[in-house]
């Protein structure tokens, strides 16, 4: 890749890093996993940069790489290709509000990976059913059913939380 294209790539990734991390965090439910996922996804983005930069929506292209990378890692006993050094320092003591967040995260984590990805795409990325189906490589009907199941599971798990802490 020529230096100019490297610069374009770097500029793009730097600008989108926060968005990628937050989306990956919702998918993985931990920051370390999120960073690993983003690292793998942006490596793949690099190898496809020629195609990606010509895509109708570069963000959509990148999001597809991210989500499909996440699903592939969960689907197979996948040897991690990039291992980032170091970990995170211990977290400070939890507050009441953080406990509530953890409840939500735990509920989200209990969703099967594809269901979780569907929920994240539909309600965090605000993708319509058709676009979510395209990202996930499944039919719109499956997106609808996965969404319904995901919402039902979250509702069941979090009803007390919703009423008591978020209500």
């Amino acid at each position: 890749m020529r230096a100019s294209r490297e610069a374009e790539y770097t500029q793009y990734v730097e600008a989108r890093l926060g968005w990628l991390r937050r989306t990956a965090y919702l998918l993985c439910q931990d920051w370390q996993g999120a960073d690993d996922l983003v690292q793998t996804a942006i490596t793949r983005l690099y190898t496809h940069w020629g195609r990606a930069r010509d895509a109708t929506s570069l963000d959509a292209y990148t999001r597809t790489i991210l989500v499909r990378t996440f699903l592939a890692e969960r689907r197979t006993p996948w040897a991690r290709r990039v291992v980032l050094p170091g970990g995170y320092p211990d977290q400070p003591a939890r507050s009441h509000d953080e406990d509530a967040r953890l409840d939500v995260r735990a509920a989200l984590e209990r969703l099967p990976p594809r269901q979780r990805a569907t929920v994240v795409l539909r309600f965090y990325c605000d993708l319509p059913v058709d676009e979510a189906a395209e990202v996930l490589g499944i039919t719109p009907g499956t997106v609808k059913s996965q969404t319904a199941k995901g919402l039902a599971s979250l509702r069941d798990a979090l009803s007390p939380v919703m009423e008591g802490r978020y209500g």
Partner: protein
Amino acid sequence: MDEDWTRALLTRIADDPEPPARIDIQAARCLGRRRVRARLFAQVAAGPLAIALAVGAIVIAPHALVARTQHPVPAAPAARPSATKATPPAPAPAKFNPLVPYATFGWLPSGFSEGGVSRLWTNPFQSGTDSLTLGAQDTSGRTLLLTVYPRGACRVGASAASAGAGSGLPAANCLIDTTPKAASRAPAINGRPAWYAVGEDGISWEYAPGAWAILDAAAAGQVPGEAAVPAKPGLFAVSEPTLRSIARSVRYGQRTPIVFPFRLRGSGQLGGALPAGWELTSVSFSLKGKTLVGSAITAGPAGDASALSISAIEPDGYGCKFVPGQSSYVTKYGVAWIDRITAEVNSNDEVLCSTGLGPAGLVHGLQVFIYLEANNPADKQALAGVKSLAGAFAVYARMELLGADPASWTKDPVG
């Protein structure tokens, strides 16, 4: 209000305080570069199949094929070309003939030889931009890539990224970015302007009026296919003076055609080997002795130049991989195949490869790969003419393997 509630929860979680990111963009670029290079050296089908090989998983195809490391025989050391040897450049063509590589290395440093697979191709995503890429490696895997563009293919000056947002500059496939941020002036190559890429291990130069070439020296320890760890930055294949010597010695206007051990016969229904409006867009070849041996071809219609990829290669012990739940074993035409080696390819695409194992997995001693897209990946629309090919097996049925004797091989694989 489940949906609004879920939206609020997800937003709340995503707003959790973030620890410092451990993401390393430079490492991604480094590893990505190695994968891009690896696919150029993968002795398998060109186009999407090769991309699948390099990327390994999600977007196209996971673990579909595994590359092998090329260990070319080192060339005999040759005298370094003289810095004063400059000849008036002949005009470069505006378009390359994909079956006759226009350029060749003239000199390589000791230990390096032209090897692996070189490609002459039309950019699948920006039709009309041709390039010829030649590879050279040494036995430790250090890599040199020479890319030669025809006249008028490259834009010289600032990139859209260098110029900043709102510059109005379009993206360019071949861009010689000469802004100080991206490049520094290099000593002239054969009397014509040249530039180093800032922070990169490469040099670009104008080899003829309006025609540019780029020589890229990969980081050391290049590993085809997947790599476990990012390459260590800063370990370049050759020094700057050596880079310039290689650049000075490149020979242009070559006329040696590639010969192929296979041909795709025409059919009455198609009126030729390819559907109307399709053309040969990419060729992979390697240098064996003094013969340029074609190993793969890619063809497609305008807008999707890599819709069909065919390769026939000597088995190397790797080949295609059976993926449980995604692949199936099929015996057809007396050949043992793996059909649809991955489900990650778009659902209507076909990927077919002979197993490479045992006599039934080879065709005249060669392993055959066929990749056929059903839709244009850019717009998801059905490809014009693809139905007339009648699927990957029908493409194979029209393949003619020409045996082991190069004398019976063809210069026109779609003739």
